[in-house]
């Protein structure tokens, strides 16, 4: 693959990312499955980068999952989005940072719709006023947290205690990236690197010492598919999509999958377990599976944060072999301790996947 070709495209798709004053909005899926990641994002922004970030308890879901599983009308979604913007306006912020990619895509879609059809925006303003007596300003900037980490990737690298390198061989780790579909497929200009070769995660991987690898099914959806996961009988679609990706990345022997979507890291993690149960098939070396991280988990790790505060014990695929490979110091016995350092038992051991302890 010719890197210059990609670099030319990356240079074309660079968007404005604000340097400070972030209005942060939670993600339904991420706070449920990766609460440590959102926490790490705030911690890194505040403590490592010294920036201002604000959140209000009054914000809610954007209804994205409901909208994309078709139970919520577009008008409702737009009005909820308007309410979220109103809360930002009231707090005196204008850089809107939604933790979720589905939200990021949806906010972009709504803003584009209003931009092209001002009469729809006017109607939604009326709706919002009727329902909540609130008013809003359009954000000056809409960025995803991964955009912000990309923006500060070198600052994070400067503070890093570890890098994406195999300490035994000195070789960079092979990292596969997975970008959430709604990050830039709908509006290529809104994502760093565009739709076909996004570099938002590659930038982090390379700045933090790893080797970003590209593989044929990179652009394929993880298979969430909203209703295709929510309803049990449809989940075959979901697992089959992820399986397709695993098969395609296999020849490249990835050490790690890095993601910026809420659902993808969970699905790419859990489906490895399901495939191992149904087919007896495992990925990665020695049946270890391929660890799947969010960009905050990865940033936290290289900054030397405790893996168990980042929440790596909540992954079905054990992270320890990778931590060892990177030479990360951690306390294995704390994995199964609660907040007050009480032992809380272990998850049941699965049949075919390797377990470290």
């Amino acid at each position: 693959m010719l890197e210059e070709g990609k670099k030319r495209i990356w240079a074309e798709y660079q968007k404005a990312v604000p340097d400070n004053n972030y209005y942060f909005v939670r993600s339904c899926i991420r706070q449920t499955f990766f609460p440590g990641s959102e926490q790490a994002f705030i911690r890194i922004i505040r403590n490592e980068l010294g920036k201002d970030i604000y959140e209000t308890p009054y914000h809610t879901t954007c209804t994205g999952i409901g909208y994309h599983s078709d139970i919520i009308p577009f008008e409702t979604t737009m009005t909820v989005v308007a309410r979220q913007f109103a809360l930002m306006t009231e707090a005196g912020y204008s850089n809107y940072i939604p933790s979720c990619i589905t939200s990021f895509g949806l906010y972009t879609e709504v803003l584009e719709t209003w931009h092209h059809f001002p009469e729809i925006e006017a109607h939604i303003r009326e709706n919002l006023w009727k329902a909540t007596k609130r008013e809003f300003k359009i954000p000056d900037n809409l960025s995803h947290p991964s955009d912000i980490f990309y923006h500060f990737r070198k600052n994070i690298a400067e503070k890093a205690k570890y890098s994406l390198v195999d300490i035994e061989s000195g070789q960079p780790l092979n990292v596969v990236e997975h970008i959430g579909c709604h990050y830039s497929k709908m509006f290529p200009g809104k994502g760093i690197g565009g739709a076909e070769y996004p570099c938002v995660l590659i930038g982090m991987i390379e700045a933090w010492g790893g080797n970003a690898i590209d593989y044929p099914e990179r652009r394929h959806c993880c298979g969430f598919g909203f209703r295709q996961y929510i309803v049990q009988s449809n989940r075959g679609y979901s697992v089959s999509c992820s399986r397709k990706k695993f098969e395609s990345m296999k020849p490249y022997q990835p050490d790690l999958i890095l993601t910026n979507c809420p659902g993808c890291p969970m699905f790419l993690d859990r489906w490895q377990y399901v495939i191992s149960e149904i087919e007896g098939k495992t990925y990665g070396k020695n049946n270890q599976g391929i660890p799947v991280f969010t960009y905050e988990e990865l940033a936290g790790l290289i900054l030397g944060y405790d893996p168990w505060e980042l929440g790596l014990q909540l992954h079905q695929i054990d992270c320890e072999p990778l931590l060892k490979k990177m030479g990360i110091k951690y306390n294995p016995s704390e994995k199964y301790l609660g907040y007050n350092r009480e032992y809380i038992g272990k998850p049941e051991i699965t049949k075919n996947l390797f377990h470290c302890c």
Partner: protein
Amino acid sequence: MTQYFKTLQEDIRFREGLSACINCGTCTAICAAAEFYQYDPRQIVDIVQSRNELEIEELLKSDTIWYCGECMSCKTRCPRGNTPGLVIMALRTLSQDSGLFIESEKGRQQLAIKRTIGEWILKTGYCVSPELINPEMHPEQGPVWKWEIDNIRTLMKKMGANYQGDGPGALRKIPEEALSELKSIFDITGATQRFEKIENDSSKKAEEMGLKLTDGLDNPYMQYIYKHNSQNHHNNQ
């Protein structure tokens, strides 16, 4: 005389999603649903643009329109600037508004989504939250999820979450005022009405199918639509 095409055209997503299709198949080539379901977004768009009311009605009653995963990969590529995914969303809206969704196995699942995601939004302010992902309904979440749920409070505290607490933070309890604002938005913008429509039409269908439908998730109709798979969706020929 039905007016399906006309109604579709009133949907902004439909107007944005479809000008004239040239049937090139760029969308189907990378469609995740087309890989695993008997599904071809190009053909759906072609049927819709034919303006054949009978054929559109067949679509609205069919499993076909429910196979899409709304990943929107089709939008990136169409040489005519169309978005089959948006056409699907408009069709799904119409299928629910016209009550035809109950005629197909996949369409009937909308009740399951309404009773999970839909009600969770109004109850918690979020589409999902841990206590709603019941390990029994979600065996694929694996033993680690069961362990997490069993130890949710202490683990969430360890991760720095504000689980069911006041003030900001992950998994906080969303204030009542915020939830009531959400409810009034739902009331005036059509979501409440759609929820009622899904409930009413599903009750009729449950009766017709002889399956009991009561509140909540634990009743025969709900369990049936959530779990039943006729396996007629993936024909490889």
